[in-house]
Structures are given as structure tokens and as C-alpha cells.
């Protein structure tokens, strides 16, 4: 199956009556609807957005729209708030995703053995990622409440210092990151557990016979074998984390100040609240370019099987 999955050209159907002709038509009929859909509804607006970013279009100001060339991008370069939100986005993505993969891997290692109640643990551990992100945001907003929230309550009971969490600019980003980690570690866990369970057992048995310690097995055997899957999980989560919106919107709406405002939120603010559509489109485009760069870097620099095929 894997060689076919690697995108080797599928041999063409040659029916008894030589229906190569109708094959040529059929394959288009299958693929065309989806392609057309994505071209019209996906690519066209994308190009439209690019065009927007070259315009001066402030719906609120009573001026007509005008061509602005690269002015929007120049302005964004000088915009402190843009850089602040950009940095927030990067911090969020790196912080959340690396920890999710690490914790997910740790959990997978823990559960990759005969334990009683494995299914129960697996189902319960999957709970966070099945919850609607808007709801998750609000749940944690309540949990993080400084006076009435359970988190600070437990801390007080344990005589530990309480935190200001969402109310303070220095802890807000961290708190939001932790909520994302709570929600998506199960994702990494599920995939990595399946990966671990699909590894061949012979090398591990041989290692045990040779007297290797758990740590040595982990470092020299498990990690190299599980690496492609680690990369895939990392990639998948990165792509999603850049798009983060729901939980932050509900937990802090970008505040306090701009401490949790991400590029998506800033672009939305500029274009749909301030109605500076040209500038907002430019900000969104920079986020898109970041997304593409991250993707290219991750698929080139990190060795992986050809997962797209």
C-alpha cells in the first residue's frame, strides 16, 4: 500500500474494448467539481484579497478607494501593534505546539503498555480536543477567574502563590497557551500512541535482551523510529495553531492591552471593525506568508516521509 500511497502514477484502466477514450473524460468528471470549487471559492477570493492589500480602502473615511501600491505593507512595517501581534502569534504557536508534542509523546509512552483500563484512560484523555473551542475558551475563562475560579482556589488551599492569569498582561499569553495545550495535547497523544503501537517489536525485544535501559531504548530506538510521526504531528499542529482565534477571542479578546492579540485578531479588528479593508488585507496576507514559510521550512528542514503523497 505504501508504494501506491507515495503517488506513483496509477496505471490507467484499459478495458477489454479499449475504453481509454472514456477514461480520459471520466477522470476529469471526478476531479473537476472539487477543483473548480476550490478555484472559484478559494483561490479567487485569495487573489481578491491580495488586490485589496494594494488598495487604500477605508470605508469609514469618506474618501473613495485608491490604488496604494505597497503603502499598506510599508505602514504595517512601521506599525508597532502589528509587530506586537505578530510576535504574540509566533510565541503562541511555538510555545503551544512544542509542549503539546512533548506532553503528547510523554502520555503516549506512558500508555504504550499493558495497563488496566487503557480504553477508559484513552477515552477520557481525548475529551479536551472534542470540546468546541469557543466553549473551551469560556470554560477556562471561568477557571482562571482570580477570586472565584477553581485554579486559584486549589493554589490557595495548597499554600501556593496564586496567579493573575488572564487579568495581567505578563501572564495572559502564558495562560492562553496553557489552555491550548490542554485542548490539543490529546491530539498529539492519540496519533503518537497509534504510531508507537505500530512499531515493530523485535528491535525492542532485542534491546531488552542486550540489557539496554529504558532511557537508552528511548533515545536510540524509539525516537528515531517515531520521528516521522513526531514531525507530522508537529506540522499538523503548527498549521492549525497559526490560525488560532476562538479561545483567545472569548478568553481575553486580545487583552489585557495587546498581550494576547494575535495577527488574526488584529487583521479582523482593522478590517471588520475599523473597516480599513486594504490595510487589514495586508496584515492577513503577511500571516498567510508566515504560514507558507513555516510549512516550507518544516517540510524541507525536518526529514520526513513524503507525507503529502
Amino acid at each position, binding site marked *: 500500500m505504501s508504494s501506491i*500511497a507515495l*503517488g506513483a502514477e496509477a496505471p*490507467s*484502466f484499459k*478495458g477489454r474494448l479499449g475504453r481509454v477514450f472514456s477514461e480520459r473524460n471520466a*477522470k476529469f468528471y*471526478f*476531479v473537476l*467539481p*472539487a477543483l473548480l*470549487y*476550490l478555484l472559484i*471559492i*478559494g483561490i479567487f477570493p*485569495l487573489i*481578491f*484579497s491580495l488586490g*485589496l492589500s494594494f488598495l487604500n480602502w477605508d470605508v469609514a473615511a469618506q474618501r473613495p478607494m485608491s490604488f496604494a501600491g505597497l503603502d499598506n505593507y510599508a505602514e504595517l512595517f512601521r506599525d508597532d501593534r502589528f509587530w506586537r501581534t505578530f510576535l504574540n502569534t509566533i510565541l503562541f504557536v511555538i510555545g503551544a505546539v512544542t509542549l503539546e508534542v512533548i506532553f503528547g509523546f510523554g502520555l503516549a509512552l*506512558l500508555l504504550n503498555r499493558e*495497563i488496566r483500563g487503557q480504553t477508559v484512560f484513552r477515552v*477520557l*484523555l*481525548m*475529551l*479536551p480536543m*472534542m470540546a*468546541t*473551542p*469557543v*466553549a473551551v475558551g*469560556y*470554560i*477556562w475563562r*471561568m*477557571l482562571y477567574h482570580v*477570586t472565584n475560579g*477553581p485554579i486559584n*482556589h486549589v493554589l490557595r488551599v495548597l499554600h501556593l502563590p496564586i496567579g493573575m492569569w488572564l487579568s495581567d498582561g505578563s501572564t495572559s499569553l502564558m495562560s492562553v497557551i496553557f489552555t491550548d495545550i490542554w485542548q490539543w495535547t490529546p491530539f498529539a497523544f492519540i*496519533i503518537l500512541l*497509534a504510531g508507537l503501537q505500530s512499531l515493530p517489536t523485535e528491535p525492542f525485544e532485542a534491546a531488552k535482551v542486550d540489557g539496554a535501559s529504558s532511557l537508552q531504548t528511548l533515545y536510540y530506538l524509539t525516537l528515531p523510529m517515531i520521528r516521522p*510521526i513526531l514531525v*507530522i*504531528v508537529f506540522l499538523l499542529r503548527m498549521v492549525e495553531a*497559526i*490560525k488560532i*482565534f*476562538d479561545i483567545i*477571542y*472569548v478568553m481575553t*479578546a486580545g487583552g489585557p492591552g495587546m498581550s494576547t492579540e494575535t*495577527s*488574526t485578531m488584529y487583521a479582523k479588528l482593522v478590517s*471588520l471593525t475599523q473597516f480599513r479593508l486594504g490595510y487589514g*488585507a495586508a496584515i*492577513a*496576507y503577511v*500571516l498567510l506568508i508566515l*504560514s507558507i514559510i513555516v510549512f516550507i521550512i518544516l517540510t524541507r528542514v525536518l526529514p520526513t516521509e513524503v*507525507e*503529502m503523497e
Partner: protein
Amino acid sequence: MLGSRRARRRLGNVLLYVVLITITVVMVFPVYWTFVTAFKFPRDAFTYPPKYVPYVQFEPTLFAWRDVGLIKDPTQRGTHDPTTILYTLRNSVITAIGSTAVSVILGSLAAYGLARFEFKRWKNRDIAFFILSQRMLPPIVLVIPYFILYTRLGLIDTWHGLIIAHTVANLPFVVWIMRGFFLGIPKELEESARIDGCSYFQAFRSIILPLSLPGLAATSAFTTIFSWNELLFAITLTFRKAQTFPTVVAGLTHGSAALWWDISAMLLLAIVPVFIFVLIFQKYIVAGLTLGALK
């Protein structure tokens, strides 16, 4: 010596369980807390110290559910409008079903085409990459032009408008999963049907589709959940007629911010359907996730 090794292993086992249970508690507690808070009186819900155990620390009640208007009670004046809640829930269902239908149909067809046929001018690999790369798009890049175009085309605040938007996000995902699925089905089945005189489409419909039901179930589950949860497109492109439930939840931050009992009830309305849905489709979802990621 043998005793101490066994004792050490047992200690290791206990430690393992302790860690696992702690982590599980952390994962489950927030949901438990919301569930429990939805059944508290206002004085028990937003108070210090917070109360965790029903019957022991507080008396459970359906007050919040009456307040939200889902349970009719003439003696209690509600704080929220039940029609909004039920209406937006219904819109969420409609959008989810619509978007799932369109993306699964278009996506499976495309996935089959990419799995079975050879494209000369643009290689399969490139077409597949083109479709799958759409997932990278940060939605905000599309939301802005959609807002403008939808306003011009009168698609704002319509079901079909939101379905169209959701499908753009769901379609690549369906193609991704179903393509892997179709590649795993041996060609002999269709070839024998073709020799018997079936057209490609007939072969697809009568032979491949029934075999693909697990894959279709998995992808349908994902697209339904995505559509149900989706917020950014929903708050931008809808506001009354086609408004979905997540927008209502997001709006709770203004005004009702301290009514934890009501809010918890509504949060449960948002997440419990998904939980039930996932429980039913559990097998397929895990299979689909791992199939797509491990392929």
C-alpha cells in the same frame, strides 16, 4: 534482592498510575466543572470558595436551565431568550449537515479520481498538493474578501453562504482522508466490474462506495464537528437569520459575564452534542485521524 526489584517495579507501577490519574483529572476537570456549575443556584455558582461536589457542597437545581428558557417555568422570569438559543442551534445543525454533504460528495469524487487515474498534464501529486495545501490558509485571509463579496452578492446571513464558506475548509480534508482510503482498496474489484461493462461511475457507486463507508463516516464526522464549532466565518458572515450557536456563546462575554450558571448551561449545549457524536463515531474518528497522519 529479588524482593527489592519486585518492590521497585511495583512502586514504579503505582507511580505510573498516579501520574496517569493526575493527568486524566486535569483533562477531565474543566468539563466536569462546567457540567456541575450548570446545575447550581446563582449563589453557589459564582462564589468563593468554589463548590465542586453536588449534594455535598451545594444542592443541584435546574434553575439555570429555566433561566435560559429551555425549561418553561412561568414563576421564573428568564434572563435569556430561548428562541435565540434553539434557533441558532438549529442553524448550526443545518450548516453542519449542508457543509458535510457538499464537501463529502465533491471530496470523495475528487479523491477517487486522484487515487485511481493518471493525470498527464498536471501530475496527480501536484493536484493533490494543490488541494491539500488549502488547509494552510489562515481563515482570516478569506474572511475579509468573503465579507465584501458576500455583501455584494447578498449572501450575508444566509445558510448557503455559510455552508459555502465552511466547505472551502472541509473539502481539502475530505480529499486527504478519502484518497488514502481509496488507495487502500484493491483495483481488482473495479477492474472486474469494468470488464463486465460498468462505467467508471457505476463501478464507483456500486462497488467502492459501500466499501468506503467507514472512511465516509470518519470524514463526515470531522466535517460536521468542524462546522458545528466554527466561529470566525460565522460571526463575520451571519448575524441573525443564519446565526450559529458559537456566535451566541462568543457574545456571552458582553453583559452576562458573571452569570456562570447560565453560561455553563449554554456551554454544555455546545459541547455535549459533540461528545455524544464523537462517542458514537469514535472508532471511525480515531481510525481516520491515524490513517491520514500515518500514511
